[in-house]
């Protein structure tokens, strides 16, 4: 039963508030390790980079609107398309999803915080500083200009002597630290920090998505960090990993990059598919059809994702036998996605729909997912890919997939969880305008690119001759991009309006079933007064669904569940069945993550500028901070450990 939680002023809550509250002022702001603060910071910073990447795209579309325009010089265009790709892929897509997951996991799993709160803060600060690092050479007109794929030998010192590609390679290694650290945190949180009863088959699909993405990142990100380190050593220290005269192999870079590249693009979409799988059923007033099917298809997609990377290299002249193997694997990977799509459609089909803005985004998402999916299916065919690869057809495919499966669910997700995060509702009418502008703009911008691709327009060209016959299609694309940008603007307006004057949302404005809707909006800093006991996948719909007799217990009084108020504590459970077995002592707020990130930044700026003294100071700061970070602090007497029998 769901006790209608009273206001915040009960004595237990005031004690918990005292334990968990972050200190006021700048120190508190920098030192906060609360997963909700970090989540929101991730969302805002990622959105900021989305806007920057978007502006870069608009300038590129302006240059390509008509043949032989002279708005951008080739240097400028190469820097723009490289930074557009790098920003969107690295600084927007995954951080945005990390924002959602950081915010929602503890609330959805019934825990008070992530497994490693300080590590969580570190992953955000390193992400922020890496983003700044990647843009440090932009004002000097030497932004990375080798494309986000940075194929050698074009990015070798011999052909790109400026610091452009040093910023890129070091920036990617720097950002890789944030991704890997974040992934480790998500995995351990899933395995240990859940509410009792939240067994593996009751996890929301976004948890499945992010968990799979994190596991993949632990395996994939080291590949690109290694490749970038080798590129940087080639450029600055004369090694010959990729340097042809010295016996290096240019194809080695492509293999290393795409072994990371393909799992990475799946890591960018699986959590977003998770958002849809969790939020769409709310507007169908019924649980997701085929929960286990969707969960298994999420994991299957990622596992297969590691076996298809050579479909990015079909035209490099590798033996046809191996290309055929990867082509077949790329066909098979469409099956799990088909399962997920049919499940969503079935949910809509058998549901009683509420045409709210999030629903529009999720319905639009399903359609774009399928269009992007089939253009992917076409490029999976190795023979056809010999005509399609490196043409605008692939540009259309990747935008349908990345915007269709990442941006639309993310915007829908923000419309869905904004009330929970801020306690205020977003305007529905403005929301509907946002959706239709973005949807129409998107399709007008990117569908014609299928046609320009089939007409042979190559990728990454700063201009094209008039007689190629693609002038008017590019104009349409450019206009579409503009409409899409207006849509994003409307979304921003809605956010600002919502923050200032959105009417109060209450605990569960959408009457959604999952745990986070049982708390106040915005949730208190300690999330739950007592650790909830979970009995099903839809704790707040159990009474109406009548699937089984047990009921989840989410209460205020000590009898409802563990209060755990002897210091910052949360419950640790066994991985599969979620039986509580230890009380976890959580570290308090700390400035160390911020300082460690600064130390890393100093080290990387030293590496970039080859200033040895800067490198040395960076390393020494790191060691010092790590020592302080890792020395265990004795807990005060009254927080002695309460062993759970």
């Amino acid at each position: 039963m769901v006790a209608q939680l009273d206001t915040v002023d009960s004595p237990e809550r005031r004690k918990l508030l005292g334990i968990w509250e972050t200190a006021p002022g700048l120190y508190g702001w920098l030192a906060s390790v609360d997963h909700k603060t970090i989540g929101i910071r991730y969302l805002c910073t990622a959105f900021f980079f989305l806007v920057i990447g978007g502006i870069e795209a608009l300038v590129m579309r302006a240059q390509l609107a008509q043949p032989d325009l002279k708005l951008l010089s080739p240097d400028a265009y190469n820097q723009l398309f490289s930074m557009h790709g790098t920003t969107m892929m690295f600084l927007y897509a995954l951080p945005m999803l990390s924002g959602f997951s950081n915010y929602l996991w503890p609330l959805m799993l019934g825990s008070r915080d992530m497994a490693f709160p300080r590590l969580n803060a570190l992953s955000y600060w390193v992400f922020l500083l890496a983003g700044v690092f990647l843009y440090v050479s932009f004002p000097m007109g030497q932004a990375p200009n080798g494309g986000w794929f940075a194929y050698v030998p074009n990015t070798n010192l011999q052909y790109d002597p400026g610091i452009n590609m040093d910023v890129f390679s070091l920036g990617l290694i720097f950002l890789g630290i944030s991704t890997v650290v974040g992934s480790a945190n998500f995995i351990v949180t899933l395995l240990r920090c859940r509410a009792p009863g939240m067994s593996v088959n009751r996890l929301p699909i976004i948890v499945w998505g992010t968990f799979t993405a994190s596991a993949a990142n632990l395996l994939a990100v080291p590949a690109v960090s290694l490749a970038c380190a080798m590129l940087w050593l080639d450029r600055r220290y004369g090694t010959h990993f990729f340097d042809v005269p010295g016996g290096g192999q240019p194809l080695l870079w492509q293999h290393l990059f795409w072994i990371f590249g393909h799992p990475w693009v799946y890591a960018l979409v699986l959590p977003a598919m998770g958002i849809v799988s969790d939020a769409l059923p709310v507007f169908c007033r019924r649980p997701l059809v085929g929960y286990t099917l969707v969960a298994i298809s999420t994991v299957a997609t990622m596992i297969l994702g590691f076996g298809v990377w050579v479909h990015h290299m079909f035209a490099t002249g590798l033996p046809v036998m191996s290309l055929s193997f990867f082509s077949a694997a790329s066909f098979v990977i469409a099956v799990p996605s088909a399962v997920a799509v049919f499940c969503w459609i079935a949910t809509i089909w058998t549901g009683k729909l509420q045409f709210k803005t999030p629903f529009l985004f999720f319905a639009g998402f399903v359609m774009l997912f399928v269009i992007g999916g089939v253009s992917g299916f076409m490029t999976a065919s190795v023979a056809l890919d010999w005509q399609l690869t490196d043409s605008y057809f692939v540009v259309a495919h990747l935008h349908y997939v990345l915007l269709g499966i990442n941006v639309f669910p993310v915007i829908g997700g923000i419309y869905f969880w904004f009330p929970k995060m801020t306690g205020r509702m977003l305007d529905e009418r403005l929301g509907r305008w946002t959706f239709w502008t973005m949807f129409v703009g998107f399709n007008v911008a990117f569908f014609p690119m299928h046609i320009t691709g089939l007409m042979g327009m190559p990728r990454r060209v700063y201009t094209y001759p008039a007689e190629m016959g693609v002038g008017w299609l590019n104009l349409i694309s450019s206009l579409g991009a503009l409409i899409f940008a207006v849509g994003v603007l409307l979304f921003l307006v809605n956010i600002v309006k919502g923050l200032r004057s959105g009417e109060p949302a209450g605990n569960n404005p959408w009457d959604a079933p999952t745990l986070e809707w049982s708390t106040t909006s915005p949730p208190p800093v300690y999330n739950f007064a007592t650790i909830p006991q979970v009995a099903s996948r839809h704790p707040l719909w159990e009474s109406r669904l009548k699937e089984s007799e047990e009921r989840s217990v989410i209460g205020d009084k000590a009898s409802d569940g563990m209060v755990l108020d002897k210091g910052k504590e949360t419950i640790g459970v066994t991985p599969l069945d979620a039986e509580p077995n230890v009380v976890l002592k959580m570290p308090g707020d700390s400035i160390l993550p911020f300082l460690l990130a600064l130390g890393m930044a100093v080290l990387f700026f030293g590496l970039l500028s080859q200033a040895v003294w800067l490198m040395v100071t960076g390393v020494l700061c790191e060691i010092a901070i790590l020592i302080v970070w890792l020395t265990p602090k004795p807990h005060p007497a009254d927080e002695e450990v309460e062993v759970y029998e």
Partner: protein
Amino acid sequence: MSIIRVAVGAVILVILAVGVTAWWVTTRAQTDARVAVAWPEGVAAAVPQGLSAGEAPPITVSIDNPLANDPNAAEEGKKLFSQMNCAGCHGYDAKGGMGPDLTDIEWRYGGRPIDIFKSIYEGRAQGMPAWGNALPTAPIWQLVAYIQSLGGTFAPSAEGQPQQAVNQGLGAQAGQKQ
């Protein structure tokens, strides 16, 4: 709280604006540099186009290499050094062969950038061909940039006579008739 938030927002916007304009200006400059001919002022006035090399009147002004701070210049110069057959005489490591060593500080016709420019542009008496016609000035300055990157050249301001070969015994050239 909101004043700080607005202030931080304003600072971010200013940084963004400055960054974008700086980017626009510098990329424009990179392209224009490629279009403009990197003529040293002294040489430009003195040498009308089309004159066969060797007839260039002496260049008195001593200026620095206009491509000095362009990272591409030295790299392009290194490629030209092998493709224009300079490596054939001066060695692929520029340590000398038929022609003198370009990495040491012995310069028979001067070690300043403008002297090296003239040696390439006008050619020299003992077999150095004149490149003034075959190569416009930008590639010649790129070659000078490469030679400067080898560390043996003097600063543009180093006055005085071109550096005589320090050690008379050095190399094959000292034996010939003065």
